[in-house]
């Protein structure tokens, strides 16, 4: 039904409909993540990969298995199972072929499973009735958008906490939330940029 071309959708998912800054998804690891940019990028890359693949997998499962069998209400269970299985797969691959990265990411890798953004992306693409290619673009774009948001806010937070004297109580989650708010505000400026039709 929706006629956005996948390229535009990819960019829209990063800027105008950023899954973290506009849909509030994927905040948990965000607030707990270390302030180093390197691990953040590693995690971001992992998330992009998982998001794109699970978006596609879940699309296929929903339209070719659940709908024909009239079992759409089980999508929550099936989606999270697919995500968990996929993350497990990624974890094993990273441990085997990129041990340094595995060591650095530590517990964040399995925690990708409960990242609201990943399940959220799959649920959104169903609600918005995206086609296969659109789903792929949306999954990839959302992942990249999440990564961009995390790195940007993390970098700002690192700078602020190093150089500024903060009032009592502001340090930590409160500051991160406010920075996120400002960033979300900045991103709303993008909404005029993309012409949907």
């Amino acid at each position, binding site marked *: *039904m*929706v*006629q956005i071309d996948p390229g535009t959708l990819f960019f829209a998912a990063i800027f105008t409909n950023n899954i973290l800054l506009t849909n509030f998804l994927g905040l948990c690891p965000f607030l707990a993540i270390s302030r180093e940019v390197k691990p953040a990028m590693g995690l971001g890359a992992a998330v992009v990969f998982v998001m794109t693949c699970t978006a596609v997998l879940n699309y296929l499962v929903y339209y070719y298995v659940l709908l024909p069998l009239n079992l759409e*209400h*089980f999508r929550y269970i099936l989606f999270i199972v697919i995500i968990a299985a996929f993350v497990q797969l990624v974890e094993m691959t990273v441990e085997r072929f990129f041990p340094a990265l595995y060591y650095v990411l530590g517990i964040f890798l399995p925690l990708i499973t409960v990242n609201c953004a990943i399940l959220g992306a799959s649920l959104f693409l169903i*609600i918005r009735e995206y086609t296969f290619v659109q789903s792929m673009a949306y999954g990839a774009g959302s992942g990249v958008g999440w990564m961009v948001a995390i790195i940007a806010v993390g970098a700002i937070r690192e700078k602020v906490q190093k150089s500024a004297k903060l009032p009592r109580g502001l340090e930590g989650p409160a500051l991160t939330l406010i920075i996120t708010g400002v960033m979300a505000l900045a991103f709303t400026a993008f909404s005029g940029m993309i012409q*949907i*039709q």
Partner: protein
Amino acid sequence: MKKRLFSILYMFLLTFFFTSIVSAVKIYSQAKIETNQRVKLQRIILDVLRMPVGEGISNRRVVELFDQRVRETEGKDRTLYVGYAEDGRAITGYAFPVGGPGFWGPIYGMVAVDPSGTEILGVAFYKHSETPGLGARITEDWFTKQFRGLPLRPEEAKKKIFYLKSAGTAQAGNELDAVTGATGTSRAVEAFLNKELAHFLKDIWPEVRKKG
């Protein structure tokens, strides 16, 4: 080995148990969910056909009224809902579903035209994913009532049937107020609704007129 077997069996039993419960809840509520959706659609159809279906009207009354006054028929690519007067013979209007991309996701609505096909009786939107308080305001009365009486002129094929302008700047008869603060949604609605109306006039209406 025994532990593994037990784990597998356990998961199996647990899955079976919970999926049964979920299925039971689903089956129990299925009828209600479908009724909700059907009545909602009927209410919208009656509303755009300008039949008396205000706030306080019960679901039962909606179904009654719909059965009495509306007949479904197949248009070229979508269902047409023909509204009849109380005597059951005179046609008061034709309603048809429309849909298109909104800003966040697809928007579905219903449009009704008068029996001569030259004027819009009413417009309503019943499904969308727009932002509450912003894009979602397209469902509000002040927005949808603007479409009432909008002329449909098939001769002016190139031009749009209506334009959405920032609140307060609409001047010509076919310029309507957009939703303030919801530029994306307003642009999307202007685009797809115009397209659907043009398509209706060009492809669907001629057949309806022929059938009489």
